[in-house]
């Protein structure tokens, strides 16, 4: 019997190399792609780069992590200085563009952040070396797989999508080399965020993702895109400013040895609560929680792969990742509950807004914000069960939502619209893509599929949380999940509303797009079937490591029932279809005056095509009004949080 820790010691060198490799490697394709003009070569580089990132992250997951978090110090003395220089360069660039666009608020925030982080570096320059730079455990390995695998798949999808994008938008300048280079730069930064132990490192990568997001949102370079890109930048900078403040606070109070995430959490709420809350504010901005949420909705002007990669599956997850990291600090704290309430209110309000949207990408955007809200709520509650739910939400949301974004992107290029109303009867004209979309949607809200398990676990967790906050969160969740059912189900219904069988138009879909859609569909299904092993081998060890021994989360028997239900959904239609299908197809009943299927006879013999539109309930759930009230409530909650922080976290 070999001690598990012994194995990890043997692997330590491999680990540090692998982590650095994952952070540094994407820069190579990024550099190559900047200069590469040939489209075929670009395809090869992107595919190879994405493949290597994916393999690297899977390798990390496959290595035995042992029972502890692993910390590493990168043996490169000048690296802090390099980062500082790069930060100054980024700040310089942002100052330049913002001054040019007369966005002086942004200039102000960039300079403020530079000042703060400069102060922090100056204060903590000596203590720096003591803090390990990198860490890895199951949680960051899961995040790495999401970034590597899903990010890689989306990069490959972007190859086909962007070619068509420029065929559809001939007026736009073709800046694809830069586009793909930024995508890979972004992957590198994301790996950096999830592997950082040193908060200064994390902050650096955090800012790089903000920069990438800004650059990619303004890719279409029209007035709307530029405005929205600046809005995204501004909101992320406002939140981001809290990050260096947290670092400064740690340096002034606890000393630089708490600058590492591991030691900070270990120090307990007395020291960690204030910085954790500050970082949570930064995370809320990054994860587009109310009142910051409008930047993410605006970001939908970017090409769809960008929305899928940055604004649903990875970058916005960096925010919730940071909050979830500090979940143990929030456990049982009122300030944690305030953060949870911010997430909860965001979940409810944005779910309601999603009902009134018919633009598919906007529905996806709002539902992304809503799910991030739910993750924030779980992380804010901070109990082991809540964290379990949060991590599962992160996993399932990343997979299902990127599948949905990509299939919407594919449909958009065939149908020429991203409106859900234009997807009527898509099951006939694009059966395979529709099936994938249905699987993706089912993954978002239906019982045996992924997200619902997390919702279930969060109800369990909230019911044990600090009263009465836990119960308030449950009431929010009860309404929010009802609303969620509404907008997803009506979308599914729209896809199935088949008038007549038309010829499939799926042959137009490029190989690169299939190469992304099929694996993502497979991943959605595999993840649903694999809940039990994911829980046992990845999440529970992480929770045990973070919290010590934990009670049983979701009883295994219930997981078995879920799997059976999933199997039923797959098996029953196949088994029963022969027995059930109608012997004879009749026309639809249309009051007796149907002249032909789908046609209705009007006055003086006029024949009219019926058109069916879904309910959008704009009067009940007006977008503007709801965001206004939602923002008001969350701003009040943020004020409570700040007051709590200023009074020293003793609230």
């Amino acid at each position, binding site marked *: 019997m070999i001690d598990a820790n012994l194995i990890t010691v043997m692997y330590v060198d491999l680990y540090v190399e692998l982590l650095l490799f994952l952070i540094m490697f994407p820069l190579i394709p990024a550099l190559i792609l900047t200069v590469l003009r040939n489209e075929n070569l670009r395809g090869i580089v992107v595919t190879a780069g994405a493949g290597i990132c994916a393999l690297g992250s899977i390798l990390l997951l496959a290595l035995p992590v042992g029972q502890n978090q692993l910390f590493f110090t990168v043996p490169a003395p000048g690296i802090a200085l390099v980062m500082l220089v790069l930060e100054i360069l980024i700040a310089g660039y942002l100052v330049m563009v913002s001054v040019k666009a007369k966005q002086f608020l942004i200039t102000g925030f960039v300079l403020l952040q530079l000042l703060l982080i400069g102060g922090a570096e100056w204060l903590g320059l000596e203590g720096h070396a003591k803090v390990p730079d990198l860490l890895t455990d199951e949680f960051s390995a899961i995040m790495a797989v999401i970034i590597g695998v899903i990010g890689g798949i989306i990069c490959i999808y972007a190859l086909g999508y962007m070619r068509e994008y420029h065929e559809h938008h001939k007026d736009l300048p073709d800046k694809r080399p830069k586009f793909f280079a930024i995508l890979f730069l972004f992957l590198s930064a994301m790996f950096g965020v999830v592997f950082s132990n040193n908060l200064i490192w994390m902050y650096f990568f955090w800012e790089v993702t903000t920069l990438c997001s800004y650059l990619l949102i303004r890719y279409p370079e029209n007035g709307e895109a530029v405005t929205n890109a600046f809005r995204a930048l501004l909101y992320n900078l406002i939140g981001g400013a809290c990050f260096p403040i947290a670092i400064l606070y740690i340096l002034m109070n606890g000393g630089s040895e708490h600058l590492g995430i591991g030691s900070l959490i270990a120090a307990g709420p007395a020291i960690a609560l204030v910085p954790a809350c500050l970082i949570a504010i930064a995370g809320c901005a990054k994860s587009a929680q109310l009142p910051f949420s409008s930047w993410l909705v605006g970001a939908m002007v970017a090409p769809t792969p960008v929305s899928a990669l940055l604004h649903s599956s990875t970058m916005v997850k960096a925010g919730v990742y940071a909050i979830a990291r500090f979940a143990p600090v929030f456990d049982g704290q009122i300030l944690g509950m305030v953060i949870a309430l911010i997430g909860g209110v965001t979940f409810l309000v944005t779910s309601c807004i999603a009902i009134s949207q018919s633009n598919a990408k906007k529905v996806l955007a709002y539902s992304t914000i809503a799910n991030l809200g739910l993750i924030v709520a779980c992380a804010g509650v901070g109990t082991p069960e809540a964290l379990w739910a949060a991590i599962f939400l992160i996993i399932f949301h990343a997979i299902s939502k990127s599948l949905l974004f990509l299939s919407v992107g594919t449909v958009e290029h065939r149908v020429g619209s991203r409106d859900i109303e234009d997807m009527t009867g898509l099951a006939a004209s694009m059966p395979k893509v529709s099936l994938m979309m249905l699987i993706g949607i089912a993954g978002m809200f239906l019982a045996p599929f992924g997200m619902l398990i997390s919702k279930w676990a969060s109800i369990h967790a909230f019911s044990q949380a600090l009263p009465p906050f836990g119960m308030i969160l449950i009431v929010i969740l009860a309404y929010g999940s009802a609303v969620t059912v509404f907008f997803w189900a009506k979308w599914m219904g729209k896809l199935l509303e088949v008038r007549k069988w038309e010829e499939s138009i799926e042959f137009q879909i490029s190989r690169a797009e299939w190469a992304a859609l099929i694996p993502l569909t497979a991943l959605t299904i595999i993840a649903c079937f694999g809940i039990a092993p994911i829980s046992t081998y990845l999440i529970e060890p992480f929770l045990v490591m973070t919290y010590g021994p934990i009670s049983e989360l979701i009883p295994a028997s219930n997981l078995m029932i879920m799997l059976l239900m999933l199997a039923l959904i797959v098996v029953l239609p196949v088994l029963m279809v022969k027995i059930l299908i109608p012997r004879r197809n*009749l*026309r639809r*009943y249309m009051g*007796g*005056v149907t*002249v032909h299927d789908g046609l209705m006879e009007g006055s003086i013999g006029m024949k009219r095509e019926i058109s069916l539109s879904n309910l959008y309930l704009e009067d009940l759930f007006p977008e503007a009004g709801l965001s206004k009230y939602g923002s008001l409530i969350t701003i009040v909650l943020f004020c409570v949080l700040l007051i709590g922080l200023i009074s020293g976290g003793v609230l």
Partner: protein
Amino acid sequence: MAYLSKSPWILHYDASSCNGCDIEILACLTPRYDVERFGIINTGNPKHADILVITGGVNEQNRSVIQNLYDQMPHPKVVVGVGICACTGGIFKECYNIAGGVGEILPVDVWVPGCAARPEQIIDGIVKALGILEQKRADMSRAEAGA
């Protein structure tokens, strides 16, 4: 296994009746006659109906409508013509727009003459139709077994 005759759901269509027979049909649903005692329900939907009850003569405008309703009913099904107009066109027979009785376009199984047909008569006609319905079901299952 004769459940069909214990739960006959009807579809009532007013072709071009003067409403006299229609009122009598609706009277059958009232507490006085209460045909729900026999499991009869007045559905509004040919997809759910077993018996098509038509009042009034067929006119040129609703020819296709009647045909359509009949076609949309699943087998086995029967047609009951209620009132003299449904049988022959009645006093409207010679009108320029009247094609005649329902028999002009549909295979009517039971005729219930009268102007207006009395509720007792209508119920009696429906009960007669039930026998034919059962017969058709038996034929249908025999045909299915044979095929």
